[in-house]
């Protein structure tokens, strides 16, 4: 089993490398370190969001409000920066994360305390959060002129040849890897997704575990709110509209089971990179943007079929020797 799961991520990694090599063949320079670093940088936010979504999906829920949360948190810090340019950017980052956390906690409470299905809750908050952007910004945009130099630069400054945006993603990946594999919270997230009933009897508070997952996905969305506004130098109602589905797609491609309980940090990261590479490669080999969407969609379905096969094909263990060798 362990080998099988490892294989799933290995195959995804190989597919990504194959795509890079093939594209490099058509258009030399695609596989150069500089271009790969730029692909990674372009995928950084998707990676962070996919990790947040992964935790929620593992607990048998889904967070459709991530992109709206991102846009609202981003708008709040953009407006704050425009009004009080002297506030240091790290404070604004914490502020964005905090906003996201509160919005995520709101989702979490509704799911935990009122027992409303996550898809319904977050479908509602998806619209509510986006609506709030209108309310606080009065339909206005915050553009480059209004933002401070630091605010824009904090995602761009390079460190060891990589922009800070990439470093944020790397640190978050490392932190979540530890969280998921080395802490009791991570263990509770997996256990309550695989078998909620057994988890309750083992003394795990399944509802609170979901709440924590929503808080974390909210906090990561909020943090990405700052990243997005800084990177694209725009704060508006339309920021990241529909992006929640790309995030879910990255998770699914990364082998995270929508039924909950199955999925890894490595899978989510590779799923996001897979989409990042496709989006960079297709324009290079002159494929129209319309095809890009179709190809991304086909990749999702293909991933689900492959995952479904590897799960569904497992036979019951009845033979004695099977038990020992598996």
């Amino acid at each position, binding site marked *: 089993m362990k080998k099988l799961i490892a294989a799933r991520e290995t195959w995804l990694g190989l597919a990504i490398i194959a795509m890079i090599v093939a594209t490099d063949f058509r258009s030399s320079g695609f596989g150069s370190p500089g271009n790969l670093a730029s692909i990674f940088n372009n995928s950084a936010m998707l990676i962070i969001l996919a990790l947040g979504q992964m935790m929620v999906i593992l607990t048998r829920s889904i967070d459709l409000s991530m992109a709206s949360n991102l846009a609202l948190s981003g708008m709040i810090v953009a407006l704050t920066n425009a009004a009080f340019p002297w506030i240091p950017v790290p404070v604004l980052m914490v502020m964005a994360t905090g906003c996201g956390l509160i919005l995520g906690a709101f989702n979490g409470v509704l799911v935990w305390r009122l027992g409303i299905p996550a898809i319904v809750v977050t479908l509602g908050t998806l619209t509510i959060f986006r609506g709030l952007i209108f309310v606080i910004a009065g339909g206005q945009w915050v553009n480059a002129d209004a933002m401070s130099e630091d605010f824009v630069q904090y995602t761009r400054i390079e460190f060891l040849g990589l922009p800070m945006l990439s470093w944020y993603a790397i640190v978050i990946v490392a932190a979540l890897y530890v969280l998921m594999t*080395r802490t009791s*919270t991570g263990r509770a997230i*997996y256990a309550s997704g695989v*078998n909620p*009933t057994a988890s309750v*009897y083992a003394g795990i508070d399944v509802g609170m575990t979901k709440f924590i997952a929503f808080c974390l996905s909210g906090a990561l969305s909020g943090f990405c709110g700052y990243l997005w506004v800084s990177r694209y130098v725009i704060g508006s109602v339309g920021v990241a509209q529909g992006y929640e589905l790309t995030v879910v797609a990255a998770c699914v491609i990364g082998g995270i089971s929508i039924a909950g309980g*199955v999925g890894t940090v490595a899978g989510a990261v590779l799923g996001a990179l897979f989409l990042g590479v496709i989006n960079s490669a297709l324009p290079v080999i002159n494929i129209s943007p319309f095809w890009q969407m179709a190809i991304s969609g086909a990749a999702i379905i293909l991933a689900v079929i492959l995952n479904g096969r590897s799960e569904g094909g497992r036979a019951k263990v009845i033979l004695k020797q099977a038990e020992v060798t598996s």
Partner: protein
Amino acid sequence: MSDPKLTLSGISKSFPGVRALNNVSLELYPGEVTALIGENGAGKSTLVKVLTGIYQPDEGDIRIGGQQVHFANPHAASGHRITAIHQETVLFDELSVAENIFLGHAPRTRFRTIDWQKMHADARTILNEIGAGHLHPETPLKQLGIASKHLVAVARAMSIDAEIVIMDEPTAALSHKEIEDLFELVNLLKAQGKAILFISHKFDEIFAIADRYTVFRDGEMVGHGELKDTNQSDLVRMMVGRSVEQVFPKREVSIGEPVLEVNALGYATEFADVSFTLRQGEILGFYGLVGAGRSEVMQALFGISRPDAGAIMLDGKPLSPRSPADAIEAGIVYVPEERGKQGVVVDLPIFQNISLPSMDKTSRNGFLRLAKEFALARQFSERLDLRAASLSQHAGTLSGGNQQKVVIAKWLATQPRVIILDEPTKGIDIGSKAAVHEFMGELVAEGLSVIMVSSELPEIMGMSDRIAVMREGRLISIEENSDQLNAETLVRLAADIKADAA
């Protein structure tokens, strides 16, 4: 005496590992009510499923009016005018009363569309006939109570002109008044010459309504006849009288001080005034009919529901678990009935399954210490002789027996004081049963205390030091398990039969 309307003879039905029905026969007579009596697991439900075409018997034949019939599916059974009214009546909440009555055989217009007018009118007629004139044909079923739903089910039986009506514990959820109404209805069906099979655990009801009886025990028919020729004591004896007693590895353990004291525990509408004491090294059996509130009491002890009355003392200290985590921390663990669903987490490795309830002990500040987890898992899997290539392999790759060991190892690793086993041997084969019983003996020998909820009399009487009997949410009696105690006494207590009521 008229000829039987329905005759079953030599019916056998096996499932992997279980012979649910063994050469049973049953006769139903027109205009008479036959009561089917038996313990849980005696084969009553299987028989109902054979009669309604859900199961096909392996052997034996079914005759209706002397003619041999074969039910390939439920539709075929209803084609022969057999209908069943279940415990949880199988009707459709979202449809109206009339639609429920005529589902599948609604009157049609010339254009093959449903003739609503005729359907409502016919429904009206039938409802009036059965004295249910207060029900409106167009009322959505979900607005009705359980008693009214039974009336709709009966109306449906009338609408297909059923000749054979099976009532499977129809009174389970009814109030006293509603039961009387139901009996009136049964008498009406009798007067119309229907043959009725009436399944109930309640002897007073059986004697009030039935004409004949058939007793099942362990999948066999052990007696039948007319009720006027028998009495409650005879029926109970037939129900429980076992030919072979299984051997139980009950160990002699010296019983120590009280460990768990429960005083006047109550929770909402589930149970009230439950008091008992569990002593060290003791196995306390909880016997009762299904739905007597035993599991509910255990879930309260384990912090799943919060009792609103009474007190729990563990080792002399008051305990009010607010969650299973609290109960585990205090030393009470609960091994639930549905092990597959509630026990093992198949997609986690064995060692993580074992350490799951002990995570507080194997982690520091929220960070897991894998070495400690492995040590814990190794210790308990060796003790239980768990056979696995590696403790990192997923629990789902183990066989059923070894999965069961993982579950037990998981609970033992929490080092409990009290272990509650809910129906520990339900649905497992004889070999595994013996292993579980053996294991319970070991637990008490090590000074743990065990509460065993079981509906199987041999198990209760074979393993328990004392037996608590619950009925309708109340603890009726706690009996010392001695040679003087016999199975009949327990059944009487559980089913509320006065001693020698006959």
